[in-house]
Protein backbone atom coordinates (compact mmCIF):
# COMPACT_ATOMS: atom_id res chain seq x y z
CA UNK A 1 0.00 0.00 0.00
CA UNK A 2 1.48 3.33 -1.02
CA UNK A 3 1.09 6.23 1.36
CA UNK A 4 -0.59 9.31 -0.10
CA UNK A 5 1.91 11.93 -1.20
CA UNK A 6 0.63 14.30 1.47
CA UNK A 7 1.85 11.96 4.21
CA UNK A 8 5.21 13.22 5.45
CA UNK A 9 8.19 11.06 4.49
CA UNK A 10 9.74 11.43 7.92
CA UNK A 11 8.58 12.68 11.29
CA UNK A 12 11.01 12.91 14.19
CA UNK A 13 9.74 13.96 17.59
CA UNK A 14 11.94 15.08 20.47
CA UNK A 15 14.94 12.88 19.66
CA UNK A 16 17.84 12.87 22.13
CA UNK A 17 20.94 10.66 21.74
CA UNK A 18 23.84 10.52 24.19
CA UNK A 19 27.30 8.99 24.32
CA UNK A 20 28.41 8.48 27.93
CA UNK A 21 25.44 10.43 29.23
CA UNK A 22 26.71 13.42 27.22
CA UNK A 23 23.96 14.44 24.80
CA UNK A 24 25.16 14.59 21.19
CA UNK A 25 21.74 15.26 19.71
CA UNK A 26 19.19 17.04 21.85
CA UNK A 27 15.44 17.35 21.47
CA UNK A 28 15.25 17.34 17.66
CA UNK A 29 11.76 17.56 16.18
CA UNK A 30 11.26 17.61 12.39
CA UNK A 31 8.70 16.81 9.73
CA UNK A 32 10.04 16.30 6.21
CA UNK A 33 7.52 16.10 3.34
CA UNK A 34 7.90 13.75 0.39
CA UNK A 35 9.85 14.75 -2.72
CA UNK A 36 12.59 16.89 -1.19
CA UNK A 37 16.36 16.90 -1.19
CA UNK A 38 17.32 17.96 2.32
CA UNK A 39 20.84 18.79 3.45
CA UNK A 40 21.96 18.49 7.07
CA UNK A 41 24.55 21.17 7.82
CA UNK A 42 26.49 21.77 10.97
CA UNK A 43 30.03 21.92 12.36
CA UNK A 44 32.09 18.83 13.21
CA UNK A 45 30.67 17.06 16.23
CA UNK A 46 27.25 18.62 15.73
CA UNK A 47 25.62 15.19 15.68
CA UNK A 48 24.74 15.06 11.96
CA UNK A 49 25.63 11.40 11.42
CA UNK A 50 24.40 10.50 14.90
CA UNK A 51 21.00 11.98 14.12
CA UNK A 52 20.49 9.86 11.01
CA UNK A 53 21.77 6.72 12.74
CA UNK A 54 19.34 7.39 15.58
CA UNK A 55 16.48 7.90 13.15
CA UNK A 56 17.36 4.61 11.44
CA UNK A 57 17.44 2.79 14.77
CA UNK A 58 21.14 1.94 14.43
CA UNK A 59 21.92 3.68 17.73
CA UNK A 60 20.16 3.58 21.06
CA UNK A 61 18.29 6.80 21.67
CA UNK A 62 17.47 8.30 25.09
CA UNK A 63 14.06 9.21 23.82
CA UNK A 64 12.41 10.23 20.60
CA UNK A 65 9.81 8.97 18.22
CA UNK A 66 10.27 8.27 14.52
CA UNK A 67 7.54 7.81 11.96
CA UNK A 68 8.24 6.93 8.33
CA UNK A 69 5.46 7.53 5.78
CA UNK A 70 3.10 7.84 8.73
CA UNK A 71 3.97 4.46 10.28
CA UNK A 72 6.54 2.62 12.31
CA UNK A 73 10.06 2.34 10.87
CA UNK A 74 9.92 -1.45 11.18
CA UNK A 75 6.94 -1.48 8.81
CA UNK A 76 8.79 0.48 6.10
CA UNK A 77 12.25 -1.12 6.08
CA UNK A 78 12.07 -1.68 2.32
CA UNK A 79 11.32 2.00 1.77
CA UNK A 80 14.22 3.35 3.80
CA UNK A 81 17.73 3.35 2.35
CA UNK A 82 20.90 4.13 4.25
CA UNK A 83 24.15 5.04 2.49
CA UNK A 84 26.86 5.03 5.19
CA UNK A 85 30.12 6.96 4.99
CA UNK A 86 32.56 5.34 2.59
CA UNK A 87 35.04 4.78 5.41
CA UNK A 88 32.58 2.65 7.35
CA UNK A 89 33.44 -0.52 5.42
CA UNK A 90 36.66 -2.38 4.64
CA UNK A 91 37.48 -1.76 0.97
CA UNK A 92 39.97 -4.65 1.05
CA UNK A 93 37.08 -7.05 1.58
CA UNK A 94 37.03 -9.89 -0.98
CA UNK A 95 33.88 -8.93 -2.86
CA UNK A 96 33.21 -7.69 -6.40
CA UNK A 97 31.40 -4.50 -7.37
CA UNK A 98 28.48 -6.55 -8.72
CA UNK A 99 28.10 -8.43 -5.43
CA UNK A 100 28.10 -5.23 -3.36
CA UNK A 101 25.39 -3.70 -5.55
CA UNK A 102 23.37 -6.91 -5.31
CA UNK A 103 23.53 -6.56 -1.50
CA UNK A 104 21.04 -3.75 -1.98
CA UNK A 105 18.46 -6.47 -2.66
CA UNK A 106 19.28 -8.55 0.46
CA UNK A 107 16.80 -6.59 2.59
CA UNK A 108 14.00 -8.23 0.58
CA UNK A 109 15.53 -11.70 0.66
CA UNK A 110 15.49 -12.29 4.42
CA UNK A 111 17.67 -14.99 5.91
CA UNK A 112 17.01 -17.77 3.42
CA UNK A 113 16.23 -16.11 0.07
CA UNK A 114 18.39 -16.18 -3.02
CA UNK A 115 18.54 -13.27 -5.49
CA UNK A 116 16.27 -13.79 -8.51
CA UNK A 117 16.94 -12.84 -12.12
CA UNK A 118 14.83 -9.74 -11.42
CA UNK A 119 17.10 -8.77 -8.50
CA UNK A 120 20.13 -9.16 -10.77
CA UNK A 121 18.52 -7.06 -13.49
CA UNK A 122 17.77 -4.27 -10.99
CA UNK A 123 21.36 -4.39 -9.70
CA UNK A 124 22.65 -4.24 -13.26
CA UNK A 125 20.48 -1.20 -14.07
CA UNK A 126 21.71 0.56 -10.93
CA UNK A 127 25.32 -0.02 -12.01
CA UNK A 128 24.55 1.29 -15.48
CA UNK A 129 22.94 4.37 -13.98
CA UNK A 130 26.07 5.10 -11.95
CA UNK A 131 28.35 4.31 -14.93
CA UNK A 132 30.16 1.39 -13.31
CA UNK A 133 28.98 -1.63 -15.38
CA UNK A 134 32.45 -1.99 -16.82
CA UNK A 135 33.78 -2.47 -13.29
CA UNK A 136 31.18 -5.10 -12.31
CA UNK A 137 33.58 -8.02 -11.93
CA UNK A 138 36.42 -6.07 -10.33
CA UNK A 139 37.22 -6.43 -6.66
CA UNK A 140 36.23 -3.33 -4.71
CA UNK A 141 39.81 -2.84 -3.49
CA UNK A 142 40.65 -1.63 -7.00
CA UNK A 143 38.20 1.30 -6.85
CA UNK A 144 39.15 4.98 -6.50
CA UNK A 145 37.31 7.19 -4.00
CA UNK A 146 34.79 8.37 -6.59
CA UNK A 147 34.21 4.84 -7.86
CA UNK A 148 33.66 3.60 -4.29
CA UNK A 149 30.95 6.21 -3.80
CA UNK A 150 29.34 5.21 -7.11
CA UNK A 151 29.28 1.60 -5.91
CA UNK A 152 27.55 2.67 -2.70
CA UNK A 153 25.01 4.74 -4.61
CA UNK A 154 24.32 1.94 -7.09
CA UNK A 155 23.65 -0.32 -4.11
CA UNK A 156 21.30 2.33 -2.69
CA UNK A 157 19.50 2.58 -6.04
CA UNK A 158 19.07 -1.19 -6.14
CA UNK A 159 17.19 -0.96 -2.84
CA UNK A 160 14.44 1.02 -4.62
CA UNK A 161 13.45 2.91 -1.47
CA UNK A 162 11.52 6.16 -1.23
CA UNK A 163 13.38 7.71 1.70
CA UNK A 164 17.17 7.82 1.50
CA UNK A 165 19.77 8.88 4.04
CA UNK A 166 23.27 9.59 2.74
CA UNK A 167 26.17 10.25 5.09
CA UNK A 168 28.78 12.56 3.52
CA UNK A 169 28.50 11.26 -0.07
CA UNK A 170 30.63 14.10 -1.45
CA UNK A 171 33.72 13.51 0.68
CA UNK A 172 36.81 12.55 -1.33
CA UNK A 173 35.12 12.14 -4.70
CA UNK A 174 36.15 13.61 -8.06
CA UNK A 175 34.22 16.42 -9.75
CA UNK A 176 32.44 14.18 -12.26
CA UNK A 177 31.22 11.85 -9.50
CA UNK A 178 30.02 14.83 -7.49
CA UNK A 179 28.04 16.05 -10.52
CA UNK A 180 26.62 12.56 -11.06
CA UNK A 181 25.49 12.38 -7.42
CA UNK A 182 23.79 15.78 -7.60
CA UNK A 183 22.00 14.78 -10.79
CA UNK A 184 20.86 11.58 -9.09
CA UNK A 185 19.57 13.52 -6.06
CA UNK A 186 17.49 15.83 -8.22
CA UNK A 187 16.18 12.99 -10.34
CA UNK A 188 15.07 11.13 -7.22
CA UNK A 189 13.31 14.22 -5.95
CA UNK A 190 11.48 14.59 -9.28
CA UNK A 191 10.27 11.00 -8.87
CA UNK A 192 8.79 11.99 -5.51
CA UNK A 193 11.47 10.41 -3.39
CA UNK A 194 13.00 12.09 -0.37
CA UNK A 195 16.75 12.27 0.20
CA UNK A 196 18.39 13.45 3.41
CA UNK A 197 22.09 14.21 2.93
CA UNK A 198 24.68 14.90 5.61
CA UNK A 199 27.06 17.43 4.17
CA UNK A 200 29.55 19.92 5.44
CA UNK A 201 30.34 22.01 2.43
CA UNK A 202 28.54 25.32 2.79
CA UNK A 203 29.49 26.59 -0.66
CA UNK A 204 27.47 24.04 -2.57
CA UNK A 205 24.53 23.77 -0.15
CA UNK A 206 22.48 26.42 -1.94
CA UNK A 207 22.65 24.68 -5.32
CA UNK A 208 22.30 21.09 -4.20
CA UNK A 209 19.43 21.14 -1.71
CA UNK A 210 15.80 22.23 -1.58
CA UNK A 211 15.71 22.42 2.18
CA UNK A 212 18.29 22.57 4.93
CA UNK A 213 18.51 21.28 8.46
CA UNK A 214 20.92 23.38 10.52
CA UNK A 215 22.12 21.29 13.42
CA UNK A 216 24.41 21.86 16.34
CA UNK A 217 23.30 19.29 18.89
CA UNK A 218 19.96 21.06 18.87
CA UNK A 219 17.96 21.88 15.78
CA UNK A 220 18.84 25.48 14.90
CA UNK A 221 16.56 25.74 11.88
CA UNK A 222 14.79 23.67 9.27
CA UNK A 223 13.20 25.02 6.11
CA UNK A 224 13.65 25.99 2.45
CA UNK A 225 17.20 27.03 1.57
CA UNK A 226 16.18 30.65 0.95
CA UNK A 227 14.79 31.06 4.45
CA UNK A 228 17.42 29.09 6.31
CA UNK A 229 20.71 29.82 4.52
CA UNK A 230 21.13 33.23 6.14
CA UNK A 231 24.09 34.73 7.90
CA UNK A 232 22.41 35.01 11.35
CA UNK A 233 21.22 31.37 11.35
CA UNK A 234 24.48 30.03 9.96
CA UNK A 235 26.59 31.88 12.49
CA UNK A 236 24.26 30.64 15.21
CA UNK A 237 24.92 27.09 13.94
CA UNK A 238 28.65 27.39 13.50
CA UNK A 239 29.31 29.74 16.43
CA UNK A 240 32.48 31.75 15.97
CA UNK A 241 33.87 29.33 13.40
CA UNK A 242 32.33 31.13 10.46
CA UNK A 243 33.11 34.24 8.47
CA UNK A 244 30.62 36.09 6.28
CA UNK A 245 31.81 38.32 3.44
CA UNK A 246 29.92 40.23 0.82
CA UNK A 247 31.15 40.28 -2.76
CA UNK A 248 30.64 43.20 -5.20
CA UNK A 249 27.18 41.94 -6.16
CA UNK A 250 26.26 42.06 -2.50
CA UNK A 251 26.10 38.25 -2.48
CA UNK A 252 26.96 36.70 0.82
CA UNK A 253 30.03 34.51 0.77
CA UNK A 254 30.26 32.30 3.79
CA UNK A 255 33.38 30.47 4.87
CA UNK A 256 32.83 27.80 7.47
CA UNK A 257 35.26 25.93 9.65
Amino acid at each position, binding site marked *: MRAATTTPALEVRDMTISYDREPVVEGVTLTIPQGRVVGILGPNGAGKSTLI*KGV*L*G*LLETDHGEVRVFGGEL*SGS*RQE*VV*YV*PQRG*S*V*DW*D*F*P*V*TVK*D*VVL*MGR*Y*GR*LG*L*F*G*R*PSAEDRRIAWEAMAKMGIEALAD*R*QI*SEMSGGQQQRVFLARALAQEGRLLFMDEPFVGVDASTEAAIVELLHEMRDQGRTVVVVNHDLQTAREYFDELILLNKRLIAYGPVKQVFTAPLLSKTYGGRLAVFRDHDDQEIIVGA
Partner: protein
Amino acid sequence: MLYELFIEPWTIGDWMWRGVLVSSLVAISCAILGTFLYLKRLSLLADAMAHVALPGIVAAYLLTGSQSTPTMLLGAILAGLVTSGLIRFVERYGHARTDAAIGIVFTSLFALGILLLSTFARDAHLDLNCVLYGNVLGVADHSLILLAVVTVAIVALTVLFFRPLQLATFDPALAAAFGLPVGLIHAGLMGTLSVTTVASFEAVGAILVIAAIITPAATAHLIAKRLETMLLVAVAHGLLSAVLGMYLSIWLECSSAGAMVTTGALLYAVTLGATWARRRWRRAQRRQRLQASALPG
Protein backbone atom coordinates in the same frame (compact mmCIF):
# COMPACT_ATOMS: atom_id res chain seq x y z
CA MET B 1 60.58 -45.61 -2.60
CA LEU B 2 57.48 -43.58 -3.49
CA TYR B 3 55.35 -46.40 -2.17
CA GLU B 4 57.15 -46.36 1.16
CA LEU B 5 56.96 -42.58 1.45
CA PHE B 6 53.38 -41.97 0.41
CA ILE B 7 51.33 -45.17 0.40
CA GLU B 8 52.72 -47.36 3.13
CA PRO B 9 51.63 -45.18 6.07
CA TRP B 10 48.00 -45.74 5.03
CA THR B 11 48.40 -49.53 5.12
CA ILE B 12 49.79 -49.96 8.63
CA GLY B 13 46.77 -49.96 10.94
CA ASP B 14 44.20 -47.13 10.88
CA TRP B 15 46.27 -44.39 12.51
CA MET B 16 47.12 -42.54 9.27
CA TRP B 17 43.46 -42.56 8.24
CA ARG B 18 42.44 -41.37 11.67
CA GLY B 19 45.14 -38.70 11.84
CA VAL B 20 44.26 -37.27 8.44
CA LEU B 21 40.54 -37.38 9.24
CA VAL B 22 40.97 -35.54 12.55
CA SER B 23 43.32 -32.92 11.16
CA SER B 24 41.13 -32.38 8.07
CA LEU B 25 38.08 -31.77 10.24
CA VAL B 26 40.08 -29.29 12.32
CA ALA B 27 41.39 -27.66 9.14
CA ILE B 28 37.95 -27.24 7.53
CA SER B 29 36.13 -25.80 10.56
CA CYS B 30 39.01 -23.57 11.63
CA ALA B 31 39.59 -22.22 8.11
CA ILE B 32 35.94 -21.21 7.66
CA LEU B 33 35.64 -19.54 11.06
CA GLY B 34 39.07 -17.99 10.61
CA THR B 35 37.99 -16.35 7.35
CA PHE B 36 35.11 -14.54 9.06
CA LEU B 37 37.27 -13.57 12.04
CA TYR B 38 40.02 -12.29 9.74
CA LEU B 39 37.59 -10.10 7.81
CA LYS B 40 36.07 -8.78 11.05
CA ARG B 41 39.63 -8.05 12.26
CA LEU B 42 39.06 -10.37 15.19
CA SER B 43 41.79 -12.95 14.54
CA LEU B 44 43.10 -12.37 18.06
CA LEU B 45 39.88 -13.94 19.38
CA ALA B 46 41.25 -17.34 18.32
CA ASP B 47 44.11 -16.77 20.73
CA ALA B 48 41.67 -15.77 23.47
CA MET B 49 39.40 -18.79 23.00
CA ALA B 50 42.34 -21.17 23.02
CA HIS B 51 43.67 -19.77 26.29
CA VAL B 52 40.45 -19.50 28.28
CA ALA B 53 39.83 -23.20 27.78
CA LEU B 54 42.28 -23.76 30.64
CA PRO B 55 40.37 -21.79 33.32
CA GLY B 56 37.18 -23.35 31.93
CA ILE B 57 38.52 -26.86 32.44
CA VAL B 58 39.84 -26.06 35.92
CA ALA B 59 36.58 -24.40 36.96
CA ALA B 60 34.59 -27.37 35.67
CA TYR B 61 36.78 -29.71 37.70
CA LEU B 62 36.45 -27.60 40.87
CA LEU B 63 32.66 -27.34 40.53
CA THR B 64 31.91 -30.95 39.66
CA GLY B 65 34.97 -32.83 40.92
CA SER B 66 34.79 -34.73 37.66
CA GLN B 67 37.66 -35.09 35.25
CA SER B 68 35.71 -36.72 32.47
CA THR B 69 36.20 -35.32 29.00
CA PRO B 70 32.58 -34.17 28.47
CA THR B 71 32.69 -32.12 31.68
CA MET B 72 35.94 -30.52 30.62
CA LEU B 73 34.67 -29.77 27.13
CA LEU B 74 31.56 -28.15 28.58
CA GLY B 75 33.65 -26.07 30.98
CA ALA B 76 35.90 -24.90 28.16
CA ILE B 77 32.98 -24.03 25.89
CA LEU B 78 31.23 -22.05 28.63
CA ALA B 79 34.49 -20.23 29.36
CA GLY B 80 34.65 -19.25 25.68
CA LEU B 81 31.14 -17.83 25.75
CA VAL B 82 31.81 -15.94 29.01
CA THR B 83 34.95 -14.55 27.40
CA SER B 84 33.21 -13.17 24.33
CA GLY B 85 30.61 -11.58 26.61
CA LEU B 86 33.29 -10.06 28.84
CA ILE B 87 35.16 -8.69 25.82
CA ARG B 88 31.99 -6.93 24.64
CA PHE B 89 31.49 -5.57 28.17
CA VAL B 90 35.04 -4.17 28.45
CA GLU B 91 34.79 -2.69 24.96
CA ARG B 92 31.55 -0.97 25.75
CA TYR B 93 31.89 0.18 29.35
CA GLY B 94 35.68 0.43 29.58
CA HIS B 95 35.87 2.22 26.23
CA ALA B 96 38.74 -0.07 25.29
CA ARG B 97 39.63 -0.84 21.68
CA THR B 98 38.74 -4.39 20.66
CA ASP B 99 42.34 -5.65 20.59
CA ALA B 100 42.98 -4.28 24.08
CA ALA B 101 39.69 -5.65 25.41
CA ILE B 102 40.53 -9.13 24.06
CA GLY B 103 44.04 -8.92 25.53
CA ILE B 104 42.84 -7.89 28.99
CA VAL B 105 40.08 -10.48 29.24
CA PHE B 106 41.84 -13.62 28.06
CA THR B 107 45.16 -13.08 29.87
CA SER B 108 43.30 -12.36 33.12
CA LEU B 109 41.19 -15.51 32.81
CA PHE B 110 44.18 -17.60 31.78
CA ALA B 111 46.15 -16.33 34.80
CA LEU B 112 43.19 -17.09 37.03
CA GLY B 113 43.19 -20.63 35.64
CA ILE B 114 46.85 -21.08 36.48
CA LEU B 115 46.26 -19.65 39.96
CA LEU B 116 43.43 -22.10 40.60
CA LEU B 117 45.44 -24.97 39.16
CA SER B 118 48.36 -24.34 41.51
CA THR B 119 46.20 -23.82 44.64
CA PHE B 120 42.79 -25.48 44.85
CA ALA B 121 43.08 -27.84 41.93
CA ARG B 122 46.56 -29.18 42.61
CA ASP B 123 45.28 -32.76 42.57
CA ALA B 124 43.67 -32.36 39.13
CA HIS B 125 46.69 -33.83 37.32
CA LEU B 126 45.86 -32.06 34.10
CA ASP B 127 48.14 -33.05 31.29
CA LEU B 128 49.27 -29.53 30.40
CA ASN B 129 51.51 -30.86 27.69
CA CYS B 130 48.52 -32.38 25.94
CA VAL B 131 46.43 -29.20 26.36
CA LEU B 132 49.17 -27.07 24.84
CA TYR B 133 50.46 -29.31 22.04
CA GLY B 134 47.72 -31.84 21.47
CA ASN B 135 48.06 -35.22 19.82
CA VAL B 136 46.36 -35.95 16.51
CA LEU B 137 46.58 -39.69 17.12
CA GLY B 138 45.37 -39.54 20.71
CA VAL B 139 41.92 -38.16 19.93
CA ALA B 140 39.19 -40.18 21.62
CA ASP B 141 36.11 -41.35 19.69
CA HIS B 142 33.69 -38.95 21.36
CA SER B 143 35.99 -36.01 20.53
CA LEU B 144 36.17 -37.19 16.94
CA ILE B 145 32.38 -37.30 16.79
CA LEU B 146 32.10 -33.82 18.31
CA LEU B 147 34.62 -32.51 15.79
CA ALA B 148 32.71 -34.10 12.91
CA VAL B 149 29.37 -32.68 14.09
CA VAL B 150 30.87 -29.20 14.53
CA THR B 151 32.49 -29.27 11.09
CA VAL B 152 29.33 -30.41 9.33
CA ALA B 153 27.33 -27.75 11.20
CA ILE B 154 29.76 -24.98 10.25
CA VAL B 155 29.81 -25.95 6.57
CA ALA B 156 26.01 -26.25 6.47
CA LEU B 157 25.41 -22.93 8.26
CA THR B 158 27.89 -21.13 6.01
CA VAL B 159 26.28 -22.44 2.84
CA LEU B 160 22.72 -21.87 4.07
CA PHE B 161 23.28 -18.37 5.46
CA PHE B 162 26.03 -17.29 3.07
CA ARG B 163 24.41 -13.99 2.04
CA PRO B 164 23.38 -12.74 5.49
CA LEU B 165 26.84 -13.73 6.79
CA GLN B 166 28.54 -11.90 3.94
CA LEU B 167 26.51 -8.74 4.49
CA ALA B 168 26.85 -8.80 8.29
CA THR B 169 30.62 -9.19 7.93
CA PHE B 170 31.11 -6.59 5.19
CA ASP B 171 28.63 -3.94 6.32
CA PRO B 172 27.03 -4.65 9.73
CA ALA B 173 25.26 -1.27 9.70
CA LEU B 174 23.41 -2.06 6.46
CA ALA B 175 22.64 -5.57 7.68
CA ALA B 176 21.13 -4.05 10.84
CA ALA B 177 19.20 -1.51 8.79
CA PHE B 178 17.74 -4.43 6.81
CA GLY B 179 16.60 -5.93 10.10
CA LEU B 180 19.01 -8.88 9.93
CA PRO B 181 19.85 -10.25 13.42
CA VAL B 182 23.43 -8.94 13.45
CA GLY B 183 23.89 -9.52 17.18
CA LEU B 184 22.66 -13.09 16.90
CA ILE B 185 24.97 -13.77 13.94
CA HIS B 186 27.93 -12.46 15.96
CA ALA B 187 26.93 -14.57 18.98
CA GLY B 188 26.60 -17.60 16.72
CA LEU B 189 30.09 -17.02 15.37
CA MET B 190 31.48 -16.73 18.92
CA GLY B 191 29.67 -19.87 20.03
CA THR B 192 30.89 -22.00 17.13
CA LEU B 193 34.38 -20.55 17.55
CA SER B 194 34.41 -21.59 21.19
CA VAL B 195 33.17 -25.11 20.44
CA THR B 196 35.55 -25.51 17.49
CA THR B 197 38.57 -24.33 19.45
CA VAL B 198 37.84 -26.73 22.26
CA ALA B 199 37.01 -29.62 19.94
CA SER B 200 40.19 -28.96 17.96
CA PHE B 201 42.73 -28.54 20.66
CA GLU B 202 42.68 -32.10 21.80
CA ALA B 203 44.05 -32.83 18.35
CA VAL B 204 46.40 -29.97 17.66
CA GLY B 205 46.76 -28.27 21.04
CA ALA B 206 45.61 -24.90 22.33
CA ILE B 207 48.49 -22.95 20.86
CA LEU B 208 48.48 -24.49 17.40
CA VAL B 209 44.71 -24.22 16.91
CA ILE B 210 45.37 -20.48 16.69
CA ALA B 211 47.51 -21.08 13.61
CA ALA B 212 44.82 -23.30 12.09
CA ILE B 213 42.38 -20.39 12.41
CA ILE B 214 44.54 -17.48 11.27
CA THR B 215 47.02 -18.76 8.64
CA PRO B 216 44.58 -20.21 6.06
CA ALA B 217 42.49 -17.00 6.08
CA ALA B 218 45.55 -14.79 5.78
CA THR B 219 46.79 -16.87 2.82
CA ALA B 220 43.39 -16.85 1.11
CA HIS B 221 43.03 -13.08 1.54
CA LEU B 222 46.17 -12.62 -0.56
CA ILE B 223 44.60 -14.16 -3.66
CA ALA B 224 40.81 -14.23 -3.38
CA LYS B 225 38.67 -11.45 -4.80
CA ARG B 226 35.36 -12.87 -3.63
CA LEU B 227 34.31 -14.27 -0.25
CA GLU B 228 33.31 -17.61 -1.82
CA THR B 229 36.82 -17.99 -3.24
CA MET B 230 38.43 -16.88 0.00
CA LEU B 231 36.55 -19.57 1.93
CA LEU B 232 37.49 -22.27 -0.59
CA VAL B 233 41.16 -21.24 -0.72
CA ALA B 234 41.33 -21.11 3.09
CA VAL B 235 39.85 -24.62 3.35
CA ALA B 236 42.24 -25.87 0.64
CA HIS B 237 45.18 -24.32 2.50
CA GLY B 238 44.04 -25.99 5.74
CA LEU B 239 43.60 -29.41 4.12
CA LEU B 240 46.91 -29.22 2.28
CA SER B 241 48.70 -28.25 5.51
CA ALA B 242 47.00 -31.12 7.32
CA VAL B 243 47.91 -33.84 4.79
CA LEU B 244 51.41 -32.58 3.98
CA GLY B 245 51.98 -32.01 7.69
CA MET B 246 51.01 -35.61 8.48
CA TYR B 247 53.54 -36.90 5.94
CA LEU B 248 56.21 -34.53 7.21
CA SER B 249 55.68 -35.72 10.78
CA ILE B 250 56.06 -39.33 9.64
CA TRP B 251 59.22 -38.68 7.61
CA LEU B 252 60.88 -36.57 10.29
CA GLU B 253 59.31 -38.46 13.19
CA CYS B 254 58.23 -35.20 14.79
CA SER B 255 55.07 -33.72 16.36
CA SER B 256 52.26 -33.79 13.78
CA ALA B 257 50.73 -30.51 14.98
CA GLY B 258 54.13 -28.81 14.70
CA ALA B 259 54.61 -30.20 11.21
CA MET B 260 51.16 -29.04 10.08
CA VAL B 261 51.61 -25.49 11.32
CA THR B 262 55.08 -25.27 9.78
CA THR B 263 53.68 -26.50 6.45
CA GLY B 264 50.86 -23.93 6.68
CA ALA B 265 53.32 -21.13 7.36
CA LEU B 266 55.47 -22.21 4.38
CA LEU B 267 52.39 -22.23 2.13
CA TYR B 268 51.62 -18.69 3.34
CA ALA B 269 55.18 -17.56 2.60
CA VAL B 270 55.10 -19.07 -0.90
CA THR B 271 51.74 -17.41 -1.65
CA LEU B 272 53.02 -14.08 -0.38
CA GLY B 273 56.09 -14.38 -2.59
CA ALA B 274 53.98 -15.32 -5.61
CA THR B 275 51.56 -12.40 -5.22
CA TRP B 276 54.49 -10.03 -4.80
CA ALA B 277 56.18 -11.36 -7.96
CA ARG B 278 52.90 -11.20 -9.89
CA ARG B 279 52.37 -7.57 -8.91
CA ARG B 280 55.89 -6.64 -9.98
CA TRP B 281 55.52 -8.47 -13.27
CA ARG B 282 52.21 -6.73 -13.99
CA ARG B 283 53.71 -3.35 -13.20
CA ALA B 284 56.65 -4.02 -15.49
CA GLN B 285 54.30 -5.08 -18.29
CA ARG B 286 52.23 -1.94 -17.92
CA ARG B 287 55.39 0.16 -18.08
CA GLN B 288 56.46 -1.63 -21.24
CA ARG B 289 53.09 -1.03 -22.84
CA LEU B 290 53.25 2.65 -21.94
CA GLN B 291 56.72 2.97 -23.43
CA ALA B 292 55.66 1.14 -26.56
CA SER B 293 52.67 3.41 -27.06
CA ALA B 294 54.78 6.52 -26.42
CA LEU B 295 57.19 5.64 -29.21
CA PRO B 296 55.91 6.69 -32.64
CA GLY B 297 55.87 4.00 -35.29
